[in-house]
């Protein structure tokens, strides 16, 4: 197989609202940054992938509206109705096919423009079995958190420690919207949403856009001084059925990781991976995902986080940066990229040669993706 690298990236700041920019203007800002970072013009990008859902965009066939702001006029482009890491996987396959050498991938959130977000979320539920029951979509996270805590012995306090850590990390991330200095008691004192889930366990949403440029080895070496290589990719889905899925474990993440580790020849992820960015849409998800990715043993993630023995999500995660819908995996990947390039500023880890980013598409989905990046 060819080697494929990420040679450029751009991200707007994540913000609760972004009224001075249309989504087109926001995407243009990220795309221009990414092409500049890659040292190319938009004309050199041969194909484009966007990641979006029509119901969150508020447009039917929303992908038809994306070429202009990406510099993709009259070029091949397509939309993946999935997470950004799935978009990167699509770009990877496009390059492997030999059809293209340089592909740009985009994802964004204009969540603040959705005036009925709970209706949009509820619209994802099965219309026969689930919708008539009339629960708020967060109830799914409550069900899952309860079973996860029950099965592993993890505690709500350990989940609260995830929130404290990520919101604090976000204070050092200029892209983050929700940095804060909090105490565990602040989290445990926040109102119950769907027990055992509390309000502070849920990441706030944000507006933002991320664009990355992916290239084959020849193009990457000639264009970029510091390409970051895609060494592994994986993605998988558990059943959509709320009645039959595995509630205690994130099976989709286990399978996605297995696929990515096999591709990257990783035998001992905890030792071989320096930078770990995982989905933390809900606090317990960070723990569940870390265990699914074999970064630590089942049932130990919470204890290790509380004791400060592992410290994933230097970016601040979705809890600290703001959840970007299908672009959340982009924010995770962006942080790994910055760490591997040595561009993470105050957050820079001493050793950062191999990294992992993982995404989950949120309630009520059971789809996740994993990407392994390396400096070699």
């Amino acid at each position, binding site marked *: 197989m060819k080697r494929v690298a990420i040679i450029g990236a751009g991200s707007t700041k994540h913000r609760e609202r972004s009224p001075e920019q249309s989504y087109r203007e926001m995407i243009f800002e990220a795309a221009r940054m990414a092409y500049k970072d890659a040292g190319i013009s938009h004309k050199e990008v041969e194909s484009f992938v966007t990641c979006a859902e029509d119901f969150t965009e508020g447009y039917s066939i929303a992908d038809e509206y994306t070429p202009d702001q990406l510099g993709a006029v009259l070029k091949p482009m397509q939309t993946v109705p999935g997470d950004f890491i799935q978009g990167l996987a699509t770009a990877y396959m496009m390059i492997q096919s030999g059809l293209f050498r340089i592909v740009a991938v985009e994802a964004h959130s204009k969540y603040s423009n959705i*005036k009925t977000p709970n209706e949009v979320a509820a619209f994802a539920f099965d219309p026969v079995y689930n919708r008539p029951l009339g629960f708020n979509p967060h109830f799914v996270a409550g069900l899952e958190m309860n079973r996860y805590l029950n099965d592993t012995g993890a505690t709500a306090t350990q989940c609260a420690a995830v929130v404290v850590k990520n919101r604090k990390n976000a204070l050092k991330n200029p892209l983050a919207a929700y940095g804060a200095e909090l105490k565990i008691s602040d989290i445990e004192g926040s109102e119950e949403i769907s027990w055992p889930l509390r309000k502070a366990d849920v990441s706030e949403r944000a507006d933002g856009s991320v664009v990355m440029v992916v290239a084959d080895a020849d193009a990457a070496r000639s264009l970029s001084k510091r390409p970051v290589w895609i060494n592994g990719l994986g993605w998988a889905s558990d059943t959509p059925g709320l009645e039959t899925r595995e509630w205690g474990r994130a099976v989709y993440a286990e399978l996605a990781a297995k696929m990515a580790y096999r591709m990257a020849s990783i035998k001992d992820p905890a030792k071989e991976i320096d930078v770990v960015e995982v989905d933390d849409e809900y606090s317990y998800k960070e723990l569940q995902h870390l265990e699914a990715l074999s970064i630590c043993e089942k049932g130990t993630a919470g204890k290790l986080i509380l004791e400060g023995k592992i410290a994933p999500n230097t970016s601040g995660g979705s809890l600290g940066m703001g959840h970007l819908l299908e672009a959340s995996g982009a924010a995770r990947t962006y942080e790994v990229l910055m760490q591997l390039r040595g561009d993470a500023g105050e957050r820079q880890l001493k050793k950062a040669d191999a990294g992992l980013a993982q995404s989950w598409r949120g309630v009520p989905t059971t789809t996740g993706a994993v990407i392994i990046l390396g400096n070699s």
Partner: protein
Amino acid sequence: MVLEKFELKGTGLKSQAVKDGSVLTMPCNPKLQYSWDTGQAVGRYLDGLKEGKLIGKKCGGCNRIMIPPRMFCELCFKDTGDWVELEDTGKVNTFSICHVNWDASRLPQGALPHLPAVIEIDGASEGMGILHVLGEADPKEIKIGMKVKAVWKTANERAGAITDIRYFKPLR
């Protein structure tokens, strides 16, 4: 739908069975609402419409004058430059004579057909224009390339929307 007009083997489904609910369906009436940030380009364009003006923007790279305006040139991929006030006249790029409503129901017998048209605005670069409707026009006399002029709502009626222009009428 009249099911009886189809010849089916076995026990035919009767229209009445659908009506009385013995054929089961799950109804869905989603309440999906959005409020898009117009951003700078569209915002200024809508402000212009409210003032009874057509506002475009010029790209310093390719020198195109674009309407509706945009903050970036999609061809040069850089920031656009000056705002430009354009004429409210133009010429018909293409048009159609439409006998159905948006929901595909037919217009009543004798009603004037809808006249959607793409209008290239004077002063903007070739091919730059807006989609609108023609009025005060005999469908038989409309031609591609015909000169037209905007008929605006009164200042009090204008709300900062594309409908602040009632229609474009032939310029005689």
